């Protein structure tokens, strides 16, 4: 078998196994149906907190540093799309240091002939949280309409590319933080901090001071997971340079983080029990 078809076979296997995991997941969730729906509903409720915040504020002021209600909503809407993807599939990279490294769950994962990162992701996914993505689309369409935005044909493929890039940023940052667990042997409490910082991306960068803006752009690039791509999608072309960097930054951060992850796996020696 050539190398090419070997890769194809491998990718096909991963996709098939993904759907198997998905089927199992749905079965376990459907065992406690009411709880499942309460959980999904509470997730919607959680997204509504920021929505309520924005709506209430704009009953008191017409604009925030020149940004109107609809523009702020549009940014939040875009922010929710990659955020929903992150919540659905990558949120539990949180668990890696404790559950997989410290408690040794990774032993089981590494024994199987499947990519370890992939296994961790499908074992801990919560695909119902993709509902956040849906909320985001609704908010974007609503606010885009309200501000009289007329989408051009390239806005649609562009959105896909930008969402992909933004999701890769989450994947990169959290894979990196999860991999730190291989060295620190345990959680350092960094993840909640970064999680809180990621929420900065849902507002225009112009409200932040220089150093904060720098960090959000070049260090923990959450500005690319919200504001910059959203700005170009609402045709604020002064941010086009940043916006087009989104997929580049996304791919770079994930590739870098994944290498770090692989180095961590090599280092991993199990718990010895």
């Amino acid at each position, binding site marked *: 078998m050539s190398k090419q078809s070997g890769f194809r076979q491998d990718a096909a296997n991963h996709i098939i196994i993904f759907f198997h995991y998905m089927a199992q997941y749905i079965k376990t969730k459907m065992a406690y149906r009411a709880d*499942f729906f309460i959980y999904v509903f509470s997730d919607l409720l959680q997204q509504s907190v920021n929505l309520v915040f924005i709506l209430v504020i704009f009953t008191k002021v017409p604009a925030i540093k020149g940004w109107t209600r609809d523009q702020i909503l549009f940014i939040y809407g875009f922010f929710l799309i990659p955020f929903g993807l992150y919540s659905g599939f990558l949120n539990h990279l949180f668990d890696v240091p404790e559950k997989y490294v410290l408690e040794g769950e990774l032993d089981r994962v590494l024994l199987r002939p499947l990519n370890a990162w992939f296994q961790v992701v499908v074992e801990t996914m919560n695909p119902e949280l993709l509902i956040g993505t849906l909320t985001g689309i609704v908010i974007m369409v609503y606010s885009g309409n309200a501000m009289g935005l007329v989408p051009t044909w390239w806005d649609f493929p562009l959105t896909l590319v930008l969402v992909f890039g933004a999701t890769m940023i989450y994947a990169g940052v959290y894979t990196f933080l999860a991999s730190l667990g291989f060295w620190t042997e345990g959680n350092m409490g960094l993840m909640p901090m970064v999680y809180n910082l990621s929420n900065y991306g849902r*507002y225009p960068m112009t409200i932040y001071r220089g150093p904060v803006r720098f960090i959000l752009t070049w260090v923990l690039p959450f500005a690319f997971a919200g504001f910059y791509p959203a700005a170009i999608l609402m045709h604020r072309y002064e941010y086009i340079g940043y916006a087009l960097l989104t997929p580049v930054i996304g791919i770079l951060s994930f590739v870098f983080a994944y290498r770090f992850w692989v180095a961590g796996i090599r280092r991993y020696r199990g718990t010895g029990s």
Partner: protein
Amino acid sequence: MPDHDLPGRSRPVGFGNRFLLYLELVRMEFVNNLAYRSSYFTGIFNYTIQIGAYFFLWDAIYSGRRAIGGLNKEEMITYVIVAWVARSFYFSNLDRRVAVEIRDGKIALELIRPYSYQMVKYARASGEAFFRILFFAVPAGTAIYFIRPFGLPPDWQAGLLFLLAVTGGFVINSQISMIAGFCAFFTQSTSGIFRAKRVIMDLFSGLLLPISFYPGWARDIIKLFPFQTVSYMPNLIYLGKITGGAVLHVILLQLFWVAFLGLVSVLFWRFAVKHVVIQGG
């Protein structure tokens, strides 16, 4: 406190002994938490980042404006900082702990013990709260003060009354958590309920934005619930926006809610214990 002071198995448990028992639990929880003080250290950074997000936001919202919802910019920034620092004190994982004990069936063992389950939980929560004041709220407040000085209470009386009101807020928040925790008697996964509770607390306690920002109809609804006595009202006392007799009104309102929620949780507890299904294991 030496062990022999604890109520023995055969002796009837008097009120005094019981009080000492709960006091001992407060102390124990405090000491327990000391072992984990480093984890609170990262909590301080966490809160600083959270507060930072709202600082920038409010700073931008107020740019070029004098007062919104009865607060000027400096007052608003003080409000946000005080609200979060106070939260670092009154917040507890009571709901989660209660839920875990119910789900694991440990609650069965608690039911046969000669003390009130709820009082034990409150005592432990108080011990944690004392710990949180010393190792979380005070250092966080001090650190933030150095980064961005914020307003202090207008006089020492206001400061003292604020502490009193926040303590009331702590009790009410704990009671709400307890009731939320009891939901575990009736549902397998409580994470959804806890999240819903958090959303309600964030929005209607006044943590994220002062209740005075809401439109009139929303304020009228919020008034019917205990939430705004947890954060909004204590914060206004801190700012000197509620003074004199109005403070007494807040304290009385809190006492009312403490009694009301206490009654609800006792009734809920009795109902639940009668219908309890202990998870087999």
